[in-house]
């Protein structure tokens, strides 16, 4: 029922939020090990 009430803006905000969270996790957890070895090279 909820999805039918959502406006396009809401969907955009949800998609943007998920993308932002995904990026945060990628940046701080997955990309971290590579960065550390760069840092120490």
């Amino acid at each position, binding site marked *: 029922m*909820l999805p039918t009430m959502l406006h396009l803006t809401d969907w955009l*905000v949800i998609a943007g*939020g998920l993308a932002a969270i995904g990026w945060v*996790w990628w940046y*701080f*957890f997955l990309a*971290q090990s590579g960065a550390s070895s760069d*840092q120490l090279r």
Partner: protein
Amino acid sequence: MTTTAKPTVPETPSPAPMTGTTERIVIPVTGMTCAACQGRVQRTLSRTPGVVDAAVNLMTANATVAYDPGATSPATLVEAVRRTGYGAELPSSDRTAFEEQAARDAAQVEEFRVLRAKAITSVVAGVLAMVLSMPLMGVADAGHHGAVADPFMRWAMESLEPALRAAAPWLYAVPAPALSWTLLAVTVGVMAWAGRHFYARAWTAFRHHSADMNTLVAVGTGAAFLYSVIATVAPGFFLARGVAPDVYYEAVIVIIALVLTGNAFESRAKRQTATSLRALADLQPKTARVVRDAAEVDVPVEVVRSGDVVVVRPGERVAVDGQLESGESAVDESMITGEAIPVLKRPGDRVIGGTINRTGAFRYRATTVGADSVLAQIVKLMRDAQGSRAPIQRLADRISAVFVPVVVSLAIATFVAWFVAVHSGGAGGGEAAVRAFAAAVAVLIIACPCAMGLAVPTAVMVATGKGAELGVLIKGGEALQRAGDVSTVVLDKTGTVTEGRPTVTDVVVVPGAALGGDDVLRLAASLESSSEHPLADAVVRRARERGLALEAASGFRSVTGRGVEGHVSGDRVAVGSRDFVRELGVDPAPLDTDAERLATAGRTPVHVVVNGALAGLVAVADPIKPGARDTVRRLRQMGLDVVMLTGDDERTARAVAREAGIERVVAGVLPEGKVAEVKRLQGEGHVVAMVGDGINDAPALARADVGIAIGTGTDVAVEAADVALMRGDLAGVADAIRLSRRTMRTMKQNLFWAFAYNVVGIPVAAGALYPAIGLLLSPILASAAMAFSSVSVVGNSLRLRRFRGTA
């Protein structure tokens, strides 16, 4: 706050292969503010090639690194720390513990001074911003220009607005854009000066794919600031979308002011946790009066050398450690040993630097000076202990490492949820964005993990300092935590429960004999003065105490383990066991009843034979220490099992145990047997504290979960021990365990509150209670709560300063 200076460190050659040896270095690190910062420096150091182990302490602001000197160098390690965005410098090796402590104190005072100045300025700027914002509210009501967006600030300012309107009506005549731009300028000023380190450190952390408390403050205030700038520069953008161009300037300033105020309080409280250590370091006198060319001269204490003769007058402090040569005095050693009663010092006795000479003048020869002195060793030991980590800390570390990304994700989720909820509830997209934005900022601000980072180290710091005041040196957080878990206390007998020095307790003469008690003692002592046996020493000492004139023995003969015989001024005298007497053809029977009675009481009866006839008995015993019985009772009241270990025979051991109130006794144990006994108890599931003198008990002390070395006041560096008692009495054992238990309780409370605060605070800030009771945290209240949580954790640790010893 300390700024991160970055002088270049000389380049080091590329790492050589590992050599297998390990060196240890303590690198001072500046700029760490929370558990996440600490975790970041620690991770970086641990990953540096050649590093065996790295431990970073937030409280003492240093990193202890074990490394392979063949694979890396101190300069490389310093550079690795600097690349994480924090300040680091090579430790100077020639500084004493006192100088290091003084330098750290000075740095802490400076840090507090700077933080306080920044906090006060920000608070003033915050008030100014509120005043400037008030006239804007009226304007904004007309749908014209930016008003106050933060709900709490709006409420506060609406309450104050009539008063301002009456007091400064001219302010309402200033054009709204002028007020807005002034607010923008004030905010930029506060962010750039007072809050600069938040942004600089957050950025450095970000570049290294890491985040800490600064990230949360920077992202929260930064987002609020950017939003407000747009509202000021292009209000039309908002108005065109039906949203009032509200601003968050005063919220940004007040958040920075509150976080800084919290940091300043925290800095001062951290300084207070080191009070005991500072007091110890301050004991070291600056000058000493030494004898040079037969004249007394005052010289700086640093130039006193081992072997110098030092003069001390009544009321003066003893400058360095040494051995008394002439004179006699009572010396107050309470600052080192916790012993309240001044100790009488005679020629030959040791004196400790930093203690106070009370009654007489004396001269002594300096023995240990500088970094080797007892006081310097205590200060160093305390510094190391306070910089060490309790195992419980790992919990806080693990959580804080993933904390910030999780919080940022939660803040984004909060924004999305609020936006969708408000928007689909019929509000415009603009209103939805504003409310979602406030909730997301509140989540970022409230989630600062500072309290978590402080929970354990502050407690370790206060507890070790308090212990030192009581003469209980606890060598670090791990020892503290284990001592808190102890279930069984194993006491060594000799030197721990007892004085460790046999003393004559009874002299019995054969009924009807011509010789009196003093005659028997005099003859026995004259003969025994040629013997090396510990019991002989007791007999001779007692005879001297009674003022008996001893004579030299001739024809001395010793039968190992049995007795001695010889001639004393024409009398033929023999002293020894019952068997020895029988071997000499003398009947010991007349004194058998007395001998049995004494042996049952734990005393060793020695038979004295004069000219072939039994003359009497001298009983020798190692008396239990005064207060030993009280301590044993107290330990048992604390729910601890008390066991006594001894190499003595069962009967003597039982007698001593009975006197001390100990029920469990393991007698006839050889030194290596003590280790096995400790192991056996551990195997039964007990957490064992072994109490011994630290010399022949060293293996058992090391094997036990907690090794407690009972000291003579100078054995600070007993390696095998986790806890060193500066005083010889047993009361310190109960104090150490009580203090550790209380500290563990404090740590757990701290961790609970730090976690609970985040667990409760984040959902409330995200608006979890809004649907039910309409409660929503303003970012400003969130920052106040965050500052309060850190201060409350440090305050809880400081309560440990009220701990009282039993002595």
